[in-house]
Each structure stands twice: as C-alpha cells, then as structure tokens.
C-alpha cells in the first residue's frame, strides 16, 4: 500500500472557483484519514484529484514518491465510493461488483469466486441478481462498497459514502467499513462533514475550510488543542462558546470589569502576543451555572433542552449567547438570572487573527 502525499496542491476550476489552496498532506500506509469540513471546503476536490477525476492546477501528488497527478484514473488503482452510489443501472448487483474485475480481464471463474466472497462479506448474496433500481439505499451502498473492495485496490476513496442513508444505517455501515478497512489494511481517505462519523471511524482527521487545510490530528487533538477558531468551533457538539475579552494586564484578561482567571501556561502564552482584543473560547461543558454575583458574568436563561442525563441551556449575556451543559437535576428554568463560571483549565484564547494562543503555551 502506498503512502500518499499532496505537495502544494492547488485547484482552480475553469470558471475561476478556487477549490484548493496549497494543500500539503500525507496519508500514511494503511491509515484511515478523514477529510472533515463544511460543504464547499475542498474535501471532495481533494479526493477527486487523487482519483484522477480532476486535474490539479499547481503542485504534485505522490504515491510512494512517484508522481501520479498526470496519470489517467485507471492506472492509479484507486477504488472510490460515491455519495450517490453511482451504480451501473443497466447491470445487476453481481455485474456491478464484477465491473472492476472485467476491466482487468480476470478469468470468469475467478470473477465469480471473488464477487460471491465480497457479497458474503457484505451480506448481500441474495441481492446479486437485482438491478440497482430494485435495491434500497443501504443495499445500493453495500453494492457500491463491494465494487470498491472486490479488486483490492491500492487505496480507497470514500466521498461521503453514508450521506444519503438513514441514521441507524449510517452507524451500522460505518463500523462495517472500518472493520473491512482494518482487515484489508488499505490506505483510505474518507470524506465527511459529520464530525461524529469522523471521530468514530478515523485514525486521523484533517479539518478543511475554504480550500485550505486547517489542522490534522486525532479527534482528541482537534478537540483539546484546536489550532484556530474555525477548528475550535467546528469540532465539538454543541459548539464552543466564543466571548470577546480584553487584556487587563500583561498576563490577565477580563471583560466588563470581570476578571477571568487563566491557567499558568495560558498566562505565559498571553504575554507572547500584543493584541489587546482577544476571543475567549470555552466548551459548554466547561461552564457551570451559579447564582448571579457581581464578580461573575451574569445573564438570563433563554432556552433549556433536556437531553437525558444532561441538559443544554442557552444563556444570554451582555457579551453574547453562551451554551452551557448542566446536569439535568440542576437545570435552570427559562428566564432565570444566572452567573457563569468558567473552568480555568478548559479555556482557549484566540488572537485577532483567530489563531489559538494555547499553541504558544505548548511551544513556550
């Protein structure tokens, strides 16, 4: 299995749309890498360029240090799974799965053997005689996965493969995809906009936005140490709360006369930047609700959503709205006046360019 490397890859479509800007990314042999981001962030363009369905405008794509970005798709040996299945409508499920093998002119007996084996693996044996129009969405995508698996490709490219499926099927099929991928050890790039799916399936996640790679790491890396405000906001559900704050001293911050205590390392990081206007980021579960007091950020509860063991409350403060996760038995009622207290260790600070200062904390 090859190691895939994007080096300075940019893509501009003929109509002038810039899909990718200076992408540098390596996918290790046998790993499952998720490309995560909102729609239009360039994640699909990335795997389409790798598959050879799009040309790149600048930069190179390497497989084990050999350039592949100029090769036609059929010699790149990528198998792809499409969001809308893209099955051959005039062929039965069997023939759909057999198509990549027929392209390689395998003997008939072997085609039969391999298709049946894959069908057993995906539990679609009884469906092999049917045309796509007589398959349900989940069955169609199983056939699509079978077609990708059957030829044991150099890499798998999955473009939101579960996007059109119902929630319970998504969970079932994604664990199946992960199981098969681990068993075959094939390098896989998996595109999704669903962070829960990415967290469940990926070895590493690359977060993209507006054609640029933001950060690569495990889900916990991204969650605990987001590199910038975009990653901090995109990863985590409900999303991080952002509040504007000012520097009150070389190493302390506050807002509206309320001091916000920082950890020692974050205080050190703060001294690196000279910005006086900063953004405080805090996860909803690092905020607790107390009785209002002058030394707290106070606000009014506008919404309470019970979720079972915890509840999500929205609190309107003079600085903006804050989402808070509270244990269900301590949930406030709508309209209550409350004070907010932030856990010192859970705070993130972003400078005026939206970069995280917490990174300075690590390097410094």
């Amino acid at each position: 299995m090859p190691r895939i490397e994007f080096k300075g890859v940019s893509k501009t479509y003929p109509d002038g749309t810039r899909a990718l800007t200076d992408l540098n990314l390596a996918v290790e042999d046998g790993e499952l890498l998720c490309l995560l981001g909102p729609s239009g962030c360039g994640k699909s363009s990335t795997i389409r360029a790798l598959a050879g369905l799009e040309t790149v405008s600048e930069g190179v794509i390497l497989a084990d240090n050999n350039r592949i970005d100029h090769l036609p798709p059929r010699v790149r040996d990528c198998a792809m799974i499409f969001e809308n299945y893209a099955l051959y409508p005039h062929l039965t499920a069997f023939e759909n799965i057999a198509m990549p093998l027929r392209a390689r002119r395998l003997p008939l007996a072997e085609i039969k053997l391999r298709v049946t084996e894959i069908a057993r693996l995906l539990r679609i044996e009884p469906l092999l005689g049917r045309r796509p129009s007589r398959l349900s969405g989940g069955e169609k995508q199983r056939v699509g996965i079978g077609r990708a698996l059957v030829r044991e490709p150099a890499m798998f490219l999955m473009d939101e493969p579960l996007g059109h499926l119902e929630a319970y099927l998504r969970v079932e099929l994604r664990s199946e995809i992960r199981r098969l991928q681990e068993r075959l050890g094939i390098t896989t790039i998996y595109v999704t906009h669903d962070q829960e799916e990415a967290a469940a399936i990926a070895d590493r996640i690359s977060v993209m936005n507006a054609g640029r790679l933001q950060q690569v790491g495990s889900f916990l890396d991204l969650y605990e140490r987001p590199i910038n405000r975009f990653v901090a906001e995109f990863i985590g559900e409900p999303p991080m709360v952002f509040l504007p704050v000012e520097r009150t001293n070389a190493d302390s911050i506050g807002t509206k006369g309320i001091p916000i205590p920082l950890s020692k390392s974050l205080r050190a990081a703060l001294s690196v930047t000279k910005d006086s206007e900063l953004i405080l980021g805090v996860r909803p579960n690092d905020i607790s609700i107390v009785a209002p007091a002058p030394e707290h950020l106070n606000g009014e509860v506008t919404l309470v959503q019970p979720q079972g063991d915890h509840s999500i409350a929205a609190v309107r403060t003079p600085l903006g709205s804050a989402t808070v996760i509270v244990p269900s038995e301590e949930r406030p009622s709508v309209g209550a006046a409350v004070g907010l207290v932030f856990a010192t260790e859970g705070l993130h600070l972003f400078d005026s360019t939206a970069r995280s200062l917490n990174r300075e904390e690590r390097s410094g």
Partner: protein
Amino acid sequence: MTIAPIRKKELNSSMRHSAAAWPTGALRYLIAATFTGFCLFPFYIIVTTALKTETAIFAWPPAWKFQPTLQSFHNALFVFGGRSVVFYLINSIVISAVSTLLAVVLGAMAAYGFARFSFAGKRQLAFWILSTRFAPPVAFIVPFYLMVQKVGLLDSHVALIIIYTGMNLSLVFWILQGFFAEIPIEIEEAALVDGYSRLQIFWRVAVPLVRPGIVSTAILSAVFSWNEFLYATVLTQSRAATLPVYLAGFSNSMGIAWGEYMAVGTIAVLPILCFSFVLQRHLVRGLSFGAVK
C-alpha cells in the same frame, strides 16, 4: 393545521375530475380512433386492392366484401419482366441498413464527445451540424449530382449510403446529445476509477444507458433512408435503384396495373414495419433510474 385545507382541496378537485372523467375519456378515445382510422385508411386501400381481382378493383360502389386472391402478388413477384421487385427490395435493404448503422454509430460517438468534453468552437461546430438540415434537400440535388458524377459513383449503392448517412447524422447527433447529457456523470466517473478507458465507457456504460435514444434515432434514420425518393431517382438508374424508384417507374412502364402496383407497395412497407416493431420494445423509459439517489 395547514395540511387539512390542502387535503380538502385535493379531494374536491379529484372528485370533480372523476365526475368529468367519463365524457372526457370517451371523447379522447373517439378523437384518437378517428385520427388512427384517417391515417390507416389509405394503407387499408393499398392492401385490399392488392388482394382484389381486377374486376373487384374497379367495381362501383367499392367492393367492401370480396374474395381475396394472391394473384397480384404472384404477378408482381414472378411474372413481370425485367428485374423483379426482390432486386430493388435488396437494394433498399442494403442502402437503408448500412446508412442507418453508419449514422447511428458515427452520430452517437460524436454526440457523446460533444456531451462530455469541452473544446474550442464546440457550440459553433454543433450548430454547423444542425445547419446541414436547414435547406430543403432539393437545393443540393445539382451539386450532389455533379460530385457523384465526378467521382464515378452514379448508380451506385455507395453514393446513396454516403448521402443518407450525412442527412441522418445531424438528426442522430442532436437527439443523442440530449440523451448522453442526461446520464449522471458519477456513473461514468465510477467506470473511470473502475479501470475503464473513455472508449470502453462509451460502449459498455453510455451506449446501453441511451438505448431508447439509439432505437428511436435508428427507426427515424431507417424510415428516412427507406422512403427517400428524390436523391435515389436522380442518382440511380437501375443497378442501385431503390424501391421508391422502382415503384415510381412501375406505373409508367406497365400502364397502371393497380393490383400489382399495390402488391409491390405492400411489399415495400413490410420490412420497415417489421424493423420498427422489433425495435419498439426497446423504447422503454427510465433506463438510468435507480443509479444515483
């Protein structure tokens, strides 16, 4: 709250519809039947005349009930001197079949290229292909005659095949372009990553998916080539003359032997009728349903 009034409205309109359905439906069938009868009546006259004896043909009032006889068919096929109708039938079949095949194959490949690739001057080129049908065919008859004469192809199958192919090509091209453009691009992208070349994708994925379009254009092309009279009569004499030419000459040289004339007419219609009937069952809709969400 908002759903209820909409449902009620729907119910009302559907009730109104069903109450009005009977006369509308019957009227519709009446109109269709009248039109069908109007179209088929000349055909009925041709076939029955071919089956009548000479006295029955000229009987007045027309003999609606008569004893059918195959005498006219027998005469047309075996008795008349010179080349028999079979010779011209074969000419027509060869010329129509070859020109239809060429027009559909070349037209489909061109249409696929235009539907899937962009290149400089694409729109102008497509429009030029359409423009070959702007002028009436008779406008080209003299230049065509001169060209065919210069290359020594007068009274040859090849000349008619080339001309018919050219005339059908723009029709095939424009119809199939729409069909190819409707194939979801992902299906072809899937074939690309599955390891197929563009040409393989054309034959193994695109063509099967536009089968209804191929069938329609094949029928239209074949009917055109089969019926074409003007070019055939000007560019052929005897060796490559087609059935329409033979039919036209028939009435002149023999006087008008109505029974035999109509028998040949019947024979002339049969092959193209069979061809259309055989292909018709491939005119199914929605071949690419279910491929993509």
